[in-house]
């Protein structure tokens, strides 16, 4: 989802250059996108030595558009990965026994945005309009929404840029709150010119980034997995209270991975992450709520993305104890 369409020649860049200590457990971790503020907590936990302190020797694998984190997990090219709940459920439906061991983003950052100038002020106004969407899992919620409101829309593929929206090929586009929405603002759109549709407002809230491992791996390394999640959450907490330091590190990672690094954009993303992490019930961060889980399962089943019944108990291991 990076604005600039870079497909880096993918090469691992190994961050574990330090000599490994005796009691350390090695772990490989892959996020589902390029290094950015979306993954600040992991970077902090690594850079500030929180993983090390907890006896973990974590390898942060650089993510990117051509690295599907769930594929890598399935293929055991990584031990732990980040993925959307809806994506993970579909993989689980295909009998890959993965489990969620921590849920970071509680609310959908995915949104639909339209230009008021094109006459779209309410959800009904989207009927008959052209809508740009990314592929696959990015379409689940929009399609469910259109079905729910019985809207006929013409769908356009959305690439790495919002140019088809900027050039008025489409009337409605998809954005991530923490990413493209800010980029739109930085292409000159004022908030007042845009109509925003948030899925949580239409009972289609999908928790997004969650931490996944294969069940087998978890059963063998339960303590290590829980330590990883706890250390990661500690990293996030540290990050949220140390914005400047965190942003500096994020910028360093972005530059190192040869991505355009815009500090204001990362700052925006980071601040949105803080909001998206906070559960609506004000409880601890990092937990998957059963209600949210059931809502996603229901939507996926209704839309035919999954067929099996997946139980919350089987799918989720709370970082704070038994679910």
């Amino acid at each position, binding site marked *: 989802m990076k604005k*600039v369409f870079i497909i880096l020649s993918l090469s691992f860049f190994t961050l574990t250059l330090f000599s490994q200590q005796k009691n350390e457990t090695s772990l490989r971790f892959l996020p589902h996108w390029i290094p950015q503020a979306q993954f600040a907590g992991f970077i902090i936990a690594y850079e500030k030595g929180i993983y090390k302190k907890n006896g973990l020797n974590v390898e942060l694998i650089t993510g990117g558009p051509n690295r599907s984190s769930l594929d890598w997990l399935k293929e055991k090219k990584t031990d732990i990965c980040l993925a959307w709940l809806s994506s993970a459920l579909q993989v689980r439906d295909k009998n890959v026994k993965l489990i969620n061991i921590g849920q970071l983003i509680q609310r959908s950052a995915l949104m639909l945005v339209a230009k008021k100038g094109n006459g779209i002020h309410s959800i009904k106004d989207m009927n008959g309009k052209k809508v740009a969407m990314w592929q696959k899992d990015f379409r689940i919620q929009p399609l469910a929404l259109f079905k729910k409101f019985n809207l006929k829309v013409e769908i356009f593929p959305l*690439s790495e840029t*919002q*140019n088809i929206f*900027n050039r008025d090929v489409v009337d409605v586009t998809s954005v991530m709150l923490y990413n493209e929405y800010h980029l739109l*603002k930085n*292409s*000159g759109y004022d908030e007042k010119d845009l109509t925003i549709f948030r899925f949580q407002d239409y009972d289609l809230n999908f928790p997004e980034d969650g931490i996944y491992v294969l069940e087998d791996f978890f059963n063998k390394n339960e303590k290590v997995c829980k330590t990883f999640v706890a250390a990661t959450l500690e990293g996030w907490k540290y990050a949220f209270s140390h914005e400047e330091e965190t942003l500096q590190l994020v910028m360093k990672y972005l530059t190192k991975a040869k991505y355009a690094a*815009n500090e204001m954009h990362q700052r925006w993303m980071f601040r949105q992450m803080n909001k998206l992490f906070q559960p609506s019930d004000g409880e601890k961060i990092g937990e998957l709520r059963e209600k949210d889980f059931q809502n996603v399962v229901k939507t996926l089943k209704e839309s035919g993305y999954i067929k099996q019944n997946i139980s919350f108990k089987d799918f989720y291991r709370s970082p704070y104890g038994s679910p």
Partner: protein
Amino acid sequence: MVRLRNSLAVKLIFSILAVSGIIFVFIFGSNFSRSHEILLKNVRLNAKHLSLATVNKIEIILTNVEKIPYTLAYHLEHSTLTKKEMLNLLTSVTASSNEITGVTIAFEPGLFAGVKGEFAPYIYKNNGTLKTVYLKSPENNYRIKDWYLIPKELGKAMWSEPYYNVDNNSKILATFSAPFYLNKNGKRICAGVVSAEIDLHWLEQIVKNVKLYKNGYAFLISHDGTFVTHPKKDFIMNETIFSVAEKYNDSAVRKFGQEALHGKSDFIFLKQFLDKKNIWLYYIPLLTNDWSLGVVIPDDELMADLNALTKYILFYNLLGAILLIIAIAFLANRITRPLKKLAAATDEIAGGNFNVAIPEMKSKDEVSHLAISFNFMKISLRQYIDNLMETTAAKQKMESELKIAHEIQMGILPKIFPPFPDRTEFDIYAVIEPAKEVGGDFYDFFLLENSFLYFSIGDVSGKGVPASLFMAVTKTLIKASTSINFPLNEIIAKVNNDLCVENDSSMFVTIFFGRINLKTGEVDFVNAGHNLPFIVSLNGEVKKIEKTGDIAVGIVDNYQYQLAKIKLAENDTLFLYTDGITEAQNNLDELYSEKRLEVFLDSQRLSSARELVLNSVKEVKRFSATAPQSDDITSFVIKWIKPMEND
């Protein structure tokens, strides 16, 4: 001494400086603003021409590139090419252009004869050789790419946003894509897109050359506000004009970005652009690709010449002001120095020193005229004062002599009361209240043979020394001429004759002359034109002595005066007076008059002689109040108490 702030020099300096200051500010201000306007106008024009030239330069290159996709699209629409022919064509156009780095002909799936599904040959330059790639899903799903999708959907050829080279992040590329069409079943449908890709490195060089003033620069922003070129390398492809506006929290910059992206052109002032300097910005759209060129001119450099000129003008104006102050001070001093000397001389003169020299003036201006007049005034004043001093001395001398004369005059009148302390049968008292000048009133009394009391009262005509001398002579003559055997009228006749002799000044004197027989109360008298005395009885009767009709003494030689007689009762009072009483005036110019006197006397019948005399003077003064006394007031009272016992 004059206080500094009151001095003429300071006042002149302040008022002239104030006026010239206002004039200067006005001229300078209008000149400055006009110069500023002209400067801005010229800079705007310069920036405009430079921008237009730059935009032209860019657009010529871009337009040249555009020709290739257009031409290819035309070929594709009007001829059927085999795959080989197509590749040859692609190869030759890619090789023929310096700017173009690659060309693609991308078909909608199945629309290229002989190929099922996607067909999109892409020929690009790589280290001097040409390589061919067939774009295919899923790795290269060209149909969702902006360069393909947008022109196809919008049905028009257009430039893409700039993007980084896939293999090499340092190269910024842009693509011009033109859709081409086929007729299928009588319907014109989009068959695909031809695109030419160029490396934008030359753009940076062109824009870099746009420079107004030392630190001026230019930048290019793309259709979504992304910096394509900027002197700051990390801005390029990484920041948009809006992200920069967000970073520096500058809404003016954001507004400029929105205007620029709407294809507008303007010359604007931006305060503390990117948190630094104030700048002027000229921006103009590139019509070919909807980008915008901004030309930045630092305000301080733009204003440098004008500011230098301003400083120069201010410096010389300051110098001028100083010269003006000196000139005014000099001039004021030239004016005030003689004036100060004059003032000092005046102070001396005021102090009484008329010998002080009035300073001489070399110049022939108003001040020297003043000095001449002043000198003339001094001389006149001195003469006047000399005269005055002489006159005053003479007057003082005369006054002192008059005073002596008056004292002598008064000295010859009997002034000791009671004059005959052992005599109880009569009471006598008199007083003269002199006016300011020496007057001619007199009174006198004396006893002869113990039982005859001679008395006289007189008033000489006129005033001053002659009158007082005439009075003295009269009084002396009367006394000298009196003898017990002479009747009173003869005595007065003799006095009259004596006074008439050589009376060149025609003076005369009124006299009431009488003799009381103290044994009988019989009074003989002569009245030579004098005010008639009153007789105040104890019982309250006040009566005037009857008139005799005789004239004053000293007028007619050998005049026969008549003797008259009256008889006093015991305790009768004889009130004698001069016209200083009856003719006394009050503030309303009324006379005291005999009538008032009569009323007064009526209230005084129990008074002693002394009381009556003093009361009468008091009464007249009361009447006169503040009116000046113009004549001597003489009050003379004889009270016959009882007959004298025989010796």
